């Protein structure tokens, strides 16, 4: 199974732990990544300003993977939605594709429309499969409780994703977490947006949105949040201390990228998964796991 790994902007700069754990887990499960250095921003941040620029940025990125005859694996949910959306629009609308290619010709690129884009979590869920993951587990995470955070763009707009999961009642991440032996904690406002997209527009609203979810989860006895988008992680992990001091509260709730969770179950050491880079330290989880190891 081969994919071009699309990192986007946030991952290589601010979520290298996510990148590292994704690469480890992929390798362990037989997913081969090709890195394309010329990939740029997916185009998502520009969509509010000019949809045409976004479309060209996305089409150019897609054309680079097409050249190598590879499907794209994304790990940021915003990148997933923009690349999927533009790919779908251009595949379905020949006239639009022609217009886009006229512009792309100026930078000597051409979009063809013969590859697919998939989020890494969806690849694990659909292509590797829950049963295969279960049978690859070397160290069960039994006894550890995770609150899944799906984020928005992994599932929505659902019309671009062919309804592979229900945006109103998603289960794919729950199943992926359970496949490691860990327990899934249900909580109110499970689908609530992290607020990341408006952090630069209105920090108060954005942080209040993140706080709301941290409040909900912390009352449910979760050991950690598990998520699949680097910007959601910025909101809950990087900004957790800020939220704590601004709202005079305390959570100390670790936030793990799902590949870090799966990586632990596959037997990788915490450091191999970049866990020392998570802002809120997952010490208790690691201790629980090591205790389990010495007992067994």
């Amino acid at each position, binding site marked *: 199974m081969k994919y071009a790994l699309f*990192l*986007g*902007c*946030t991952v*290589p*700069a*601010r979520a*290298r732990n996510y*990148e*590292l754990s994704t*690469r480890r887990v992929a390798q362990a499960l037989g997913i081969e990544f090709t*890195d394309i*250095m*010329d*990939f*740029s*921003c997916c185009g998502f*941040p*520009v*969509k*509010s*300003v*000019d*949809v*045409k*620029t976004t479309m*060209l*940025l996305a089409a*150019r990125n897609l054309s680079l993977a097409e050249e190598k005859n590879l499907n794209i694996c994304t790990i940021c949910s915003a990148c997933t939605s923009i690349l999927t959306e533009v790919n779908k*629009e251009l595949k379905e609308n020949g006239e639009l594709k022609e217009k886009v290619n006229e*512009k792309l010709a*100026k*930078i000597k*690129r051409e979009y063809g429309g013969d590859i697919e884009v998939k989020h890494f979590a969806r690849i694990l869920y659909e292509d590797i499969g829950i049963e295969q993951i279960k049978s690859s587990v070397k160290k069960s995470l039994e006894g550890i409780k995770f609150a899944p955070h799906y984020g*928005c*763009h992994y599932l*929505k*707009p*659902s019309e671009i994703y062919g309804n592979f999961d229900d*945006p*109103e009642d998603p289960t794919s991440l729950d199943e992926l977490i359970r496949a490691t032996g860990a327990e899934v904690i249900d909580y109110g406002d499970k*689908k*609530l*947006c992290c*607020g*990341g*997209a*408006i952090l*630069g*527009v*209105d920090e108060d*609203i*954005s942080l*209040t*949105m993140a706080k*709301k979810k941290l409040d909900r989860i912390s009352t449910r006895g979760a050991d950690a949040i598990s998520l699949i988008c680097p910007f959601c992680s910025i909101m809950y992990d990087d900004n957790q201390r800020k939220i704590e001091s601004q709202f005079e509260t305390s959570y100390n709730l670790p936030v793990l990228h799902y590949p870090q969770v799966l990586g632990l179950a596959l037997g990788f050491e915490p450091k191999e998964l*970049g866990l020392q880079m998570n802002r809120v330290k997952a010490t208790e989880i690691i201790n629980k796991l090591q205790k389990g190891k010495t007992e067994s």
Partner: protein
Amino acid sequence: MLGKSTEAHISFGELDPQFKYEISKLPGGENIKYCFACGTCSAGCPVREIDEKYNPRRIIRMALLGIKDRVLSSDLIWLCSTCYTCHERCPQGVKITEVMNVLKNMAVREGYIHPSFTRQVELIAAHGRLYEMDEFDNKKRERMGLPPVATKCPEASEIFNITGILKLVSKSKSKE
């Protein structure tokens, strides 16, 4: 800006009856006229739940009435968190998240842009990505066993010249 956009009084002189047609001609804006103001969008909106000044139903209603200048000059349209909750639930198939994007795109053309987006456009146009990456970052990546990433992307930068968006954004910025 905020005061102006939420003022209750509407004068006929400020209404542009063509506004809704302009929106519906743009990709994503097609179904705006089907809105029957049920409020499902506002009821599920996570931003509105925290701050009532953001009200998607109100923005759509204002757009349908043709209160063009107030809608486009308002700070409120920039508050959509693009979570797509309203978009998924709208019983009339109004793609509300996309409508907000259409409105923001139109606002930029009228010279209104939120400064955080000006910054994002400038960064991506300059570096090809939102965060500048240099050799120091690549050294850090190398130490972790991660491959290097490009520190520049001239083709992506060129796209901003092709669409003319960089020029447009700096023009809006000078208006601020």
